[in-house]
Structures are given as C-alpha cells and as structure tokens.
C-alpha cells in the first residue's frame, strides 16, 4: 500500500506520488515532534520540502533496483516502500526497528526493499552504489542503482572517484544530487563556484542534467531517461534536482539559515502543493481524492507512532550481536 514504486515504462501515478510525498512530510514532522519529546536520541534530518525528489526518482525504479541514501534518508526509505512503523521504531531505537535499534535514523537499511542503507558519512555511499551496480550486472541482473546525495556531498572526493569509476565501468548508476541550497549552515553557493552541479558530469564523460526538484513530474522524466540509459548498459547519469531545505538542518542543529524571504518564496513552490494543483487542474485527482490521500497518510503515521512508542527497548545483550557474520564466532572472539 505505501509504495511509490511504479513499473518501469509507466508514467507517474499522481495519487501514489501524493501519498508518498505526504507520508514523507508527516513522517518527518512527527520525528521532529518525537525528538522534541526526547524520544529520539542523537539527531534526525527532515526531508521536508524535498519530497518530490525521492518520489520522482524511486517511482522510476523497478523491484530489482537498488538505492543508497544519506543522513537525510527517511524520504528515500518511504518512497521505496519501507514500513513506516519499523522505520519509526528504528528512529526511536526500538526492538522492531529495521536495525534492531542499532542504527537509528541515519542507518536504516532494508535489503528486502533494495535499500542498501542510509549513511551518516556525507558522500560515503557514492562508491558503494557503483560497486553494487557493477556487481549486480556481473551477476547477470539488470539492476539499476539510484545513489542519493546532497550538494555538500558533491564536494567530497568520494563523488569524483565514484563518478569516474562508474563511468569507466559503465556501471548502471543514477547519481541523484539533491541540491537543497545548504550544507548544514553553509550555502552551496559559498562552497562551489558553479551554477549547476550537473556540469561536473562532463568531467567523467557522462550526461548531467539539472531539473526542478520540486516538480515530481520533472524529476520522474529525468529519472526515466537516466534509468533507461543505465539499464541499457550505457552507463551513469548525474541528475541534479534543485530544491530547498524548508526545515532546519536537523532536529538537533536548528540554527537559522535561509532568510524569511527565501523560505516564503520556496513555500510557494511546495512540491506537495504543486503536485496537488497540477493533478487537480489535469483532472488526475479530485479534491476528495487529495483529502482522502492525506487522511490515509496521516493514519499511517499515527499507526507507526502508536507502534513505535510502545515497542520494547532492545535487550542490552544484543549490543554484542551482529558485529561479525559467521555463526561459529563466539562472544569471546567478537571481543577479541
């Protein structure tokens, strides 16, 4: 029910997309509330205002495809169809969480959804995406990997190495740069002297394209092309989706960043409202359908909250599990 996963070749289903985007919005609003209630440890990074990107890209993927994610990863997970209850349980560090409470917000992983893992290291998953894509192909699958990352991450050396490696390997990767204008408290414009991050693709010999990251249809169109290219064996594409971070950087780091004017201007371009306006004007959705979708999304978040806050804390002894894989490894060996 939660999925924005369309069959490749189909067009974006407005109702599905709206549901996904609204679910992401409600989820991350709830996470911030729970953080403020001290139920979330560490930090959590809301995807608010960026929902069209995960939704548009992931809707272009098939079941066999994979994604890598970031510290700001809830949106990618939800768009990929992860269970919000188990996600929220993880964010709260509970037993039924996707990582049994070991990962928290920044490390949600769900192989059964082709979600290779969120990553607390900025730029840390670029190369992982390349390796997963290449190896899947080597194993005879026609997997495509969507690799999400921020504008800030595009300045890490890992971006460069991974793009170049993907290029020479013709790895089926779609690099998705979510340019939300900020890296924490620092403006993208002050850490790079280019207008479009997509221009960097030329340095690796593959296509780069910049799209309106608040327009889920535009994102989807770019994704369709990039996914088809990757799947055909022609190699990677860099999609830069321009958007804006409408929330604070994180639940922990709440210092002001954008100006009031900027926020107001971008609020006008809220990706959810934009999708609603468009869908109603094309007749794809009715007001009632929109309202009903929101109620459904809200209900899913309420159910997830109910589940997560009542879920058990993990047993302390489980802290010593999962360090190593082999079943013959003793506790003594794990501590060795």
């Amino acid at each position, binding site marked *: 029910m939660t999925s924005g996963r369309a069959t490749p070749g189909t067009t974006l289903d407005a109702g599905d997309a709206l549901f996904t985007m609204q679910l992401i919005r409600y989820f991350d609003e709830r996470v911030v509330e729970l953080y403020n209630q001290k139920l979330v440890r*560490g930090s959590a990074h809301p995807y608010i205002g960026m929902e069209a990107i995960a939704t548009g890209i992931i809707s272009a993927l098939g079941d066999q495809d994979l994604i890598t994610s970031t510290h700001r990863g809830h949106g990618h997970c939800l768009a990929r169809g992860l269970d919000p209850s188990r996600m929220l349980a993880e964010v709260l560090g509970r037993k039924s969480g996707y990582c049994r409470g070991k990962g928290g917000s920044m490390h949600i992983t769900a192989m059964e959804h082709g979600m290779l893992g969120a990553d607390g290291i900025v730029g840390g998953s670029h190369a992982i995406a390349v390796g997963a894509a290449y190896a899947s192909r080597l194993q005879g699958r026609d997997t495509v990997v969507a690799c999400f990352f921020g504008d800030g991450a595009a300045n890490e050396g890992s971006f460069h190495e991974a793009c170049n490696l993907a290029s020479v390997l013709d790895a089926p990767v779609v690099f998705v740069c979510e340019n939300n204008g900020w890296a924490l408290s620092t403006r993208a414009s*002050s850490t790079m002297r280019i207008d479009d991050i997509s221009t960097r693709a030329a340095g690796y010999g593959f296509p780069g394209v910049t799209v309106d990251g608040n327009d889920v249809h535009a994102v989807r169109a770019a994704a369709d092309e990039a996914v088809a290219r990757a799947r055909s064996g022609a190699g990677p594409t860099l999609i830069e989706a321009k958007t804006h971070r409408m929330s604070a950087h994180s639940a922990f780091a709440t210092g002001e960043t954008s100006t009031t004017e900027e926020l107001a201007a971008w609020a006008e371009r809220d990706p959810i409202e934009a999708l609603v306006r468009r869908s109603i004007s094309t007749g794809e959705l009715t007001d009632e359908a929109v309202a009903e979708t929101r109620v459904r999304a809200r209900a899913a978040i309420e159910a997830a909250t109910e589940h997560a806050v009542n879920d058990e804390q993990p047993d302390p002894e489980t802290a*010593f599990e999962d360090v190593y894989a082999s079943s013959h490894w003793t506790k003594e060996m794990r501590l060795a």
Partner: protein
Amino acid sequence: MSENMMRTISMSEALNEAMHEEMERDDRVFAIGEDIARNGGLFGVTKGLLPRFGAARVIDSPISEAAISGAGVGAALVGSRPVVELQHFDFVTLAMDQLVNHAAKWRYMSGGAVTVPLVVRGPIANGVGLAAQHSQSLESWFVHTPGLVVIMPSTPYDAKGLLKAAIRDDNPTLMLEKRLLYTRTGEVPTGDYVVPIGVADVKREGDDVTVVAISGGVPLALQVARKLEPEGIDVEVIDPRTLKPLDLDTIVTSIAKTGRLVVVSEGARAGGYASEVVARVIDAAWGSLRTAPIRVTAADTPIPYAGPLEREVLPQVHDVMTAVRNVMEKGRTQHVAV
C-alpha cells in the same frame, strides 16, 4: 590581579577563549572547517571568530575533510598556524592520508627541513545516540603514528591551556574532545596560560590504586574515587592529558606507591590506548605491580544507537568501580621477586 581571576566556564567556552586569544596574539593563526564561521561551529568552539577576525581567517569550508587537512599541512609548511576543525572526529577517516602520510611525516622525510605547526581538532560524540559513524574514540590510531602529538583534555582548564600550547607548538597536533564534556564546567583563569604538552596531571591523590584515565574516563574515575572513599579505598587519578608523548614518569611514580593500576579509556578495547598504557607500565614498573593492571574500555563493537545498547558497550561508573575493587582484592596477594 585581574589577569588571574578565576571563573567557572564550560569546556567549549574555554576552547573558544583559546581560539580568540591565539588568533589575537598571532596573526599566523587561522581556522578552517565545516560550519565554523557563520555558525561558530556545531558546539560553539569557534563562536565569534568570524566577526572579529574576518572571513579570510575564519573559513567555512566545503565538505572536504581531506582537502582542508591537506591545506592545513600546506599552510603550516609556509609558516601559518592553521587550526582545522573536523565536525566529528570520525570524519578523520577521510583525512588519514593527509594527517598520517603527510602532516606526521613531512618533517622527518625532509630530514628536518620543514616544520608542520598544524592543529586538527574535533569532537567525539559518543554517549549521545549518534551511533557507529559518529561515536568513535580513535586516539590510538594517532598514538601509533610517529610524528603526531595527541591530546585529550578532560577539564575546561586543561582544554584551554592545551589548545593554546598546541597552536604554539611546531608539531602537527591532534586534539580529541569528548562532546559530553563540552558543557561541563570548571575553573579557568582569565588571561594567558598554557598547559605544557607531555605533562600528566594528578587529578586526585591516593595511596591504594592508580587509575590512569583519559577524556571522559576522568570524571568516571573521580566519581569512583569519591564513592570508594567511605570504604577506605584511596584512589589516585592520573590524567595524562597528552597521550603522545606520554608522561610515563608520573604514572610509574604513582604505581611505585600504589602497586595497582586501572586504565580507563573509551576507545574500543582491542588495540586501544589502554593496551598501550598497560604495555608501557609493564616495561617500566613491572617490579612495582602487586597484581595485573585492568583495562576498562569500550567493548569491541561498533557503537550502537539505542540508549540501553550504547550504555552496555561504553564504560560506565560501575565498570570502573568493579575494576578498582578487583585490583584492590587481588593486589592483597602480592607478587614478589624471589
């Protein structure tokens, strides 16, 4: 004298004062890091530097840990005194080549032709639920890197004095700051002072057990010392402050008195700093030891997110307590040379 007036301030305030004073004192000092200028650093260590010293000396860098560390090396080579902030110390994994293969070795490889007065500092955020990629106490890697100086302060006083000493020192120096200590307060004099590099501090004198503790281990050890006082167990707490070079003399002198050693550090157990302290004490003070030293460390697991799990793997007061009781008990049957 107003210059020596004592105030109670937090460790992040103390570090911030050190930055202000050293940048004022020496215009070769500059600061670079992620979110350190406009935002004053995630934990306030660089607060107020941007308006005071300007954007040329207080730089919000791209997210490029390797490049800012390498730029620090280059700047140091030409006579500047850069202070590089790693937003979390775990990100040093991205800067290892610049710090280990460059900063640490450049002087040696050149036969002494160059100096690298670089400071790299940042927080260790264990204990707050930031999970495995934001909670590592990696000091032992750098202790294992000849050419580097490694510092871990446990009090505001030491933090300020050591940061000032590090900035003035001609060697590449890493300072690892436990985030949960940033908000702890302590007495710090106004005015200029340095805490010398390579000198341990006896945080509490005692006759029965020597506890060598670093960083977050120090408050744990002091708490245990207070708790055991009523039982008549007299704990001496030594904070090396500088991990490399280690002030072994102070430790050996203490063990000559107590005959018992507990080492507390928050890094993973295997290959951790506690192992190094034990190995060096075995070299230098074998004859003084009444019983085997005990290491209190983090478990050999990545740091988990959930509270009950994180507390399970990080050293707690009761772990230190148990260790101290243990060496007391076992140390009653003394080893002697026959």
